[in-house]
């Protein structure tokens, strides 16, 4: 029982991170039908910014003393930097290709992904970057299982962000314009929505969520490298497909499901096949239910 519960907690934590990254994939796909393969790299850059800021704060003696504030500053910096990267990525790599054949922006995305990986490797080195400070490990006991402070932090932050995103999409003028643009880009333009700005906003919002995921993973595992965006990106993409690509609640459900599945599979079947579960699911989905779990269509009258 306690092993099961512990694995559920671990899986939820992992799943929350996948979900945050998956949202960026799904939102961008929803609005311009592009798989933004460089999105995993935005997450990786977020993790780097987080560690760099925490290292700086530790060097000047601020960090272990004011830990919560330091983490907050690291998150804020990562969100700002990743927002700028996401915006620039769209401007440089995708907007010029808006009316090109669909394959062109996809290739551009793969190219940006490779470029950003190498750019970080060259500027930051290929060795792992390690968190410069020790975090509290004293967890909360929960029916024989442990919730570590970082796990609690990740779960609470993710839930809060997803709730905020849902409100933003459902209730605000900008959020409604995003949904309108996703449904019919030409019509959105015809009612006066500045479509390019809405698309840029979508990239920025997705990048901010990825930034938070990156910093949280850096804190959770304590070490990162320039390659983490690749595997996390693929997993999150799988999560987005699992939930139904383009579907926002789907990305949240898909992320959590994938995290749980990976964690339970690793402990009950074999941890060596951890990644095989995720990608096995991706293959099965693409064959049998490419629209994903929640990817059904509302009937439309003509």
């Amino acid at each position, binding site marked *: 029982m306690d092993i099961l519960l512990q694995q559920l907690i671990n899986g939820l934590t992992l799943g929350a991170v996948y979900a945050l990254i998956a949202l960026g994939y799904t939102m961008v796909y929803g609005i311009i039908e592009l798989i933004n393969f460089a999105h995993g790299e935005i997450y990786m850059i977020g993790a780097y910014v987080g560690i760099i800021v925490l290292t700086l704060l530790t060097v000047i003696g601020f960090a272990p003393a004011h830990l919560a504030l330091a983490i907050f500053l690291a998150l804020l910096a990562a969100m700002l930097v990743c927002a700028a990267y996401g915006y620039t990525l769209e401007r440089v790599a995708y907007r010029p290709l808006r009316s090109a054949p669909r394959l062109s922006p996809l290739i551009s995305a793969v190219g940006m992904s490779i470029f950003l990986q190498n750019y970080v490797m060259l500027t930051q080195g290929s060795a792992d970057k390690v968190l410069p400070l020790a975090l509290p490990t004293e967890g909360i006991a929960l029916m024989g299982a442990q919730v570590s402070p970082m796990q609690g932090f990740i779960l609470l932050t993710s839930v809060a962000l997803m709730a905020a995103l849902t409100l933003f999409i459902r209730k605000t003028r900008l959020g409604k314009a995003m949904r309108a643009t996703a449904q*019919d880009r030409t019509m959105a333009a015809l009612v006066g929505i500045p479509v390019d700005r809405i698309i840029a906003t979508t990239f920025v919002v997705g990048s901010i969520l990825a930034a938070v995921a990156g910093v949280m993973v850096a804190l959770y595992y304590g070490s990162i490298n320039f390659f983490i965006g690749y595997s996390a990106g693929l997993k999150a993409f799988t999560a987005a497909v699992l939930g139904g690509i383009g579907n926002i609640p789907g990305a949240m459900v898909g992320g959590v499901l994938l995290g749980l599945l990976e964690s339970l599979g690793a402990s009950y079947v074999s941890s060596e096949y951890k990644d095989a579960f995720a990608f096995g699911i991706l293959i099965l989905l693409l064959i049998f239910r490419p629209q994903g779990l929640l990817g059904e269509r509302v009937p439309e009258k003509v």
Partner: protein
Amino acid sequence: MLELRDLVSAYGPIQALKGISLRVEEGEIVALIGANGAGKSTTLMTISGARPVLRGTIRFAGEAIAGDPPHVIVARGIAQVPEGRRIFSRLTVRENLEMGGFLQRTRSALEEDLKRVFSAFPVLRERQVQLGGTLSGGEQQMLAIGRALMARPRLLLLDEPSLGLAPILVQHIFRIIRDLNRQGLTILLVEQNARAALQLARRAYVLETGRVTLEGEAAALLQDSRVRRAYLGEGE
């Protein structure tokens, strides 16, 4: 108010408009009639900025607007009800209207416009929380017109408002168009239903494969033998 001169536009290698010139004066209803593929919808999409202008000029209220992006053209006062209505089917009726008023900066202006549209189309008020895609065809057409009105246009481009509607609804929609015009809205109307369009409009243009082949007072065109044969389904 609106003047196109030698307008050329294309879909890829195919020239859809081969030099169209037309004008719409303030307060008029002008009809654009012609067969499928004549370039009627392309003309409207090009005026709205959703199709590129390859050559020629578009002037609206004295200013050159060719090359402006669609949202700027909406802000200038031209709104469009496109062919097939293109309701945001997964947005509610109210959200569809709110998007129509996207450029309305203040909350109070938006609320005021919503009230105006709801009093013109009471059925939309009843259905405001329903998804746009669940409305009937006639209701969707009213929503599409209401959505365009939310932008407070001075010129309304209407593309095939009668398409797919039952005859009684067609009459209703045409009555709405006439009322809007009487309240001061200038209208450029594209229609397959040439007879109804010519009865409603003051002037009209006949388009054939990307060119204007006939133009004049609508009443005169209704009597024109070429128009009667080609578009009103009458024999010799």
